[in-house]
Each structure stands twice: as C-alpha cells, then as structure tokens.
C-alpha cells in the first residue's frame, strides 16, 4: 500500500490503530506516531495536528488516560494507557473495520491484508 490513506478514513482508522497499540503497552505521543508510521509502512502517518487532538478526544470519551511518567531516557512524557472502556471499544471497532473492508472487497475487489 504505497499511498497514504487520507482524510476521514485515516482519522477513523487512527482510533483503531491507537487503541490496538495501547492494548499492547502504554505509549506516549511520539512513540504512537512513530510506531503507527513504521508498522503500516507509512500508509498511516500522523502529524501533531492530527494525533494529539485525536488522543484528547479519546481521553475525553474515557478510552485512554494520559499520565506523566519518565521514559527510558529519564524525560517526562505523557504516557497513554488504555482504560477498561477503551478495551471494550477495541473488539467492535475491529469488527466494524473488518466489515468495511469486506464490503469494499466485494464491491471493488479491494482485498485487505
């Protein structure tokens, strides 16, 4: 997938990407952006203007919780933890996206990974 996915699809998929990453371990903003970029081969790439507002919205919804902690280099970073509510969102979101790709696949022959 060479081209970056843009706009609302990227935004919607961003929620799933963040929740999936945080389900593995708490991360701070820069790490989230870096891992999403690396693990999607650059298909999803967050700028600051897209990442942090999304994190704050997810925090407001109670899906994630930010806490200042020192990172490995001893610098204070705001680590995002998945909350029980966020964990509950993960399965239905995954299901929604699976259904979305299946629908797209049957319509346009776009198979997902």
């Amino acid at each position: 997938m060479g081209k970056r996915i843009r706009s609302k699809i990227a935004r919607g998929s961003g929620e799933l990407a963040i929740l999936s990453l945080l389900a593995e371990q708490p991360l701070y903003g820069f790490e989230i952006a870096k891992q999403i970029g690396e693990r999607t081969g650059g298909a999803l790439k967050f700028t600051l203007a897209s990442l942090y507002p999304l994190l704050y919205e997810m925090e407001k919804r109670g899906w994630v919780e930010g806490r200042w902690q020192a990172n490995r280099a001893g610098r204070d970073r705001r680590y995002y933890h998945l909350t029980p509510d966020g964990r509950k969102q993960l399965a239905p979101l995954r299901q929604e996206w699976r259904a979305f790709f299946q629908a797209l696949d049957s319509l346009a022959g776009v198979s997902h990974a």
Partner: protein
Amino acid sequence: MREWKELVREQLKMRGSTQSIEEDVIAEVAAHLEDAYDHERREGHQESDARKRALEQVQWHKLARRIRAAKREEGGMKDRKKTLWLPTFANLLLLTLGIQALLMLGIHPQIAVGQHVWFSFPIPWLLALTFCAAAGALLAKRGGASPGERMIAGLAPSLVWLGEFGVMAAAFGFYRQDFAPFPLKDSGLTAVWWVVLPVLALFAGTLPFLGEHQVGETQEMD
C-alpha cells in the same frame, strides 16, 4: 525542553490559543518536538536541519484549532463564535458606526444619474472599509480562524450589500419591470461599482491577515 516549550507557547499564542490551551498540552507538544529533533539528529542531520525537519511536522494553525475543539465540551460551536461570528459582527458594527460618522461629516459615495450614471467613492469612505475589514480579519485570526473564516469576517459587509442589492433589484423588477433605479444598460455598471469597488477595499484590509506566518512548515500529511 524549555526552548521547545517557549516555541510552542509562542506559536499557539500567535493563533490566540494560550488562554484556552493548558500547560500540559504545551509540554506534551514540546516533548514531541524534542523527540522528533533527537530522532533527526540520530539520523545524522545537523542541528539546524534537524530542527527544521522536526518543525515540518507541525501545522500550527490546525494544531491550535483542533486542540481547542477537542478540549472543549461545546467543541465547534464555541470555536465558531470566536473565529467567525464575533469578528464578523465586530466588522459590521464598526462599519455601521464609521459610515454614520462619515455621513455626519458629509463624506459619502455620490451617484449621479444623468445621461450616464456616475459614481464617486471618497478615499475616507474606502479607507473606512479597509480598516473595518482588517479589524474583522485580525479578530478572526486571533481567535484561531481558518483563512476561509478570516476571509468571511473581513468581507462580511459585501455579503450584506450583495443581499441588499439583490433585494433592491428584485423589488424594482417586480414593481417597475425594471432591474434597478437606473436604466438597464447601466445596471451592470451599477452592480460593478456598488459591489466590486467596495469589495476590493474590504479585500485590501483582509489580505494581510490571510497568511499563516509559519516557520519551517510543509503540508500536513494525515
């Protein structure tokens, strides 16, 4: 870290955001830029190049606007008041007062209808338009408005005039089977003078506030 915080605070302040954006957010964005800078340095870039590349990840205007929206309960509506409605209203109010003052001083546009329609827009009148448009656009920009919102806040009076002109034309068309109080052949000219010239004056006031004044940025890629 302190340097990055100052930079973030300054950039957000330029977009009228520091009052509504918490210190935590400033610290978090500064931390991100610091990490991005360190990453670029590890990749072998010189200090200035690494700094430039780190800053290229930020579109300050979007960041300020989206963070405000994400942090507020009311979200977009409250934001829109500050970025559009209040600046537009301020522009219209200022212009109304300014025009009244100019009329009291005997300065007003003149229209003479003879063999040809003739118009005159005095310089103070046009300057008043430019000043009010600048005030509206400046207020919108300070409220963190997008360029489109700043444009509307600056050019708002022209939208009102366009509406008035449309109503007037419709009324004359209905009652007199004529487009305007002037002969039909001059109606186009009338529209041009009543709309285009004032709009140009308003645009001159709005234009300086349409730019972002950003440092080292590229297009957002999300």
